[in-house]
């Protein structure tokens, strides 16, 4: 247990902060502490968690991606059009098309980064603008409301009325999110490819000397994020029941903040799926709590920005010193 606390200091402290905030919110608001609200949070956070685990893989491999959220919008439009061509389709064909388009857009980033040696932040700021510009140009900013019925109908996999009258629901986005989370976890912790990604992010030159295929690493990392962006984009369209070109614009920074909050390091080699999910949940819970407390939505960003700042400062430096048993080092310096 101690060694878990020590090697997962970020996750443990995030969990502690989530518990603390939840405790405060349950006392100060009537509705927060209900299973119904908890499942609502999960439903709302699903898309961001899907994006986040994708971005996590890129961060672990030492890159960064600013373009994935607008890429998801491009995927939404592309998928809607492709589904029109094939005459409606269904969930399977929809996910396949969205996933493939996403991988294609992610691979474009990897190609620019690997082939032309453009650093990832510059490459993806460029593709962010290109993707978004193309989208606005071709759609003229027009939304699509005429989506296939299967895509806009809510899919409730499980529902149950609680004694207090609230409903707990597990919807399709949650299922997809859970599958994406597990798949990412398997990829980065249980496969040799995942460990090569970590190694590449941690020490690129060391990885190169072992003969790790650097190009493949870039394509796998950005391709995986593209896949997650594609799937997340389709799920977001399902959730919102419409496709709006700028609906996801700006989402990239929220997700990035949550992933970094979850312990991933800009620079590579570090980050976990658990931390990443907790990072997204912490932000959702805070937002939800502020909502229930009646705080003006205009103050949300400011408060969340402050929380990220405090949490990252704590997890980087102080947590180990605050918990004496964590900082005890058996060996080493």
């Amino acid at each position, binding site marked *: 247990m101690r060694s878990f606390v020590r*090697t997962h200091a970020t996750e443990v402290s995030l969990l502690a902060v989530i518990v603390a905030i939840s405790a405060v919110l349950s006392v100060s608001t009537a509705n927060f502490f209900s299973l119904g609200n908890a499942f609502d949070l999960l439903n709302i956070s699903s898309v961001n968690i899907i994006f986040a685990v994708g971005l996590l893989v890129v961060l672990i491999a030492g890159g960064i991606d600013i373009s994935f959220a607008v890429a998801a919008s491009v995927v939404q439009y592309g998928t809607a059009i492709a589904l029109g061509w094939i005459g409606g389709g269904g969930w399977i064909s929809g996910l396949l098309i969205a996933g493939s388009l996403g991988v294609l857009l992610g691979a474009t980033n990897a190609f620019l980064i690997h082939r032309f040696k453009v650093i990832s932040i510059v490459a993806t700021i460029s593709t962010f603008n290109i993707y978004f510009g193309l989208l606005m140009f071709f759609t003229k900013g027009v939304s699509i409301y005429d989506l296939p019925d299967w895509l806009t109908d809510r899919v409730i996999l499980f529902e149950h009325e609680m004694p207090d009258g609230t409903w707990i629901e597990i919807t399709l986005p949650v299922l997809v999110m859970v599958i994406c989370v597990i798949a990412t976890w398997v990829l980065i*912790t249980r496969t040799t490819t*995942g460990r*090569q990604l970590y*190694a590449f992010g941690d*020490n690129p030159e*060391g990885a190169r000397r072992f003969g790790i295929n650097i190009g493949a690493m870039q394509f796998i990392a950005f391709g995986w994020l593209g896949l997650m962006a594609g799937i997340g984009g389709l799920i977001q369209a399902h959730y919102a029941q419409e496709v709006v070109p700028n609906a996801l614009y700006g989402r990239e920074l929220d997700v990035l903040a949550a992933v970094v909050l979850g312990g991933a390091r800009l620079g590579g*080699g570090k980050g976990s799926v658990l931390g990443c999910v907790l990072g997204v949940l912490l932000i959702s819970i805070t937002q939800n709590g502020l909502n229930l407390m009646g705080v003006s939505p205009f103050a949300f960003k400011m408060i969340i920005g402050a929380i990220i700042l405090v949490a990252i400062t704590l997890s980087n430096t102080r947590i180990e010193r605050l918990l004496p048993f964590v900082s005890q080092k058996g060996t080493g310096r």
Partner: protein
Amino acid sequence: MHQLATAGGGEKPLLSLSDINMTFGGVKALKNVSFDVRPGEVHCLAGENGCGKSTLIKIITGVYRPADGASIEFDGETYSHMSPVTAQDRGIQVIWQDLALFPEMSVAENIAFQTVLGRWPKLVDYGRMRKIAEDALARLGVTLDVDLPLKEYAIAQRQIVAIARALVGEARLVFMDEPTASLTQSETDHLLDIVRGLSAAGVAVVFVSHRLAEVLEISSRITVLRDGALVGVYPAAGMTQSRITELMTGKTFDQQVRAKPRDGQPVVLDVKGLSRPGQFEDVSLTVHRGETLGITGLLGAGRTELALTLFGMLKPASGTIALEGKPVRFSSNRDAIAAGVAYLSEDRLSLGLIQPQSIADNLVISSLDKILAGGLLSEDRKGSLVGRWIADLGVKIGLQQDAISTLSGGNQQRVAIAKWLATDPKLLILDAPTVGVDVGARAGIFDIVARLAESGLAIILISDEVPEVYFNADRVLHMAQGRIVGNYDPRSASLAEIEGAVYA
């Protein structure tokens, strides 16, 4: 003058190279080099930076391909060149100077990293990984928690992890590139024991090190390269450090104690009872005008902390510092610089110099106020200030605008010294000024130090290599566990006496 060693006699070599030529962009990096290693021997590859040692290692391990006509014979098979895969399969391993480890990953993964290699994804077998790592560490007689991230361990343990990794693949020949560069003496001793153990187990080790004392201690034969050509192969028995230095540089150096009495000169620095709990206790010392005070001791003895305190970057808990008779309290190193204290950092690469910036910008960074004209930086003044110091310290440069990273270690160190001299200091603290500097260039740096002292500068010279302070300082203080435990005069004390006390 190819002189073949006779030690050991007619044993068949494990590795034998001949006619190795290598050219980089028109420059011949290796000229007709031959090299051989016998099974289980510890063989030292000696030579100054840029002599072709690393190139040779990279050819043997398949990173580079030598020019046509080369022959590489390993354990009965002949190759015209190696590939990294073949080299690994045949049991040739390298421990690079920068270790090429993954600090965020666990010790087990670092050691058993080869289990996650491969083109196609497989599931990771953490149990097997842990077992491989524990077995490899057990062979070295070391216990580490293999589940902890490597970053939790200090450099000495990381070095051991790198060795353990090299042993995983049934190594028959291990190259160690400067394995002791960042180790203390006791850690080095432990490493040398490990090398002896490997050798006894039949693994041949090729050892590359700047520290000639340990080269003589550990190796049975020494191959010396100079300017890409083979100088010769010599048995270690009967060799001396000065002889190796001569062979490496082609010049002769006679080291003589430079100490002179300086007591008659006015006191520049007077420190009384200086303490920082946990780092150093009750340190009192004086440095006179023109005097070089050597401070030696093992890593962790508190030398660097003491230096940083004199430089105003750490605050003392108690005690006083007086400069030229006036008590001073520095609230930051800006105060210290203004008062005439200069500190040459022990970590030149990351702290002392800004690598991508130009030589000129690096040199003036601490004395920008001296090159102002009408409140703005003047390129003319900068050029003349830089030109003066470059000439004065004999720095070999192309253009002042070239990046500092284009210079050799010795020349970079000269620029670092010039940077501080440009601030007109009264006291210059040199912390490990020869780390990463070649033997030949070291002598040049100490010549500069001696000249600066003659011109009246007070100098504190910190080094964990006792001979450096012994030959170059007027007095030597020995620091251990934060206290000054010995005070020697090199004119009356012997080197062996001080080394005995420090390395005990």
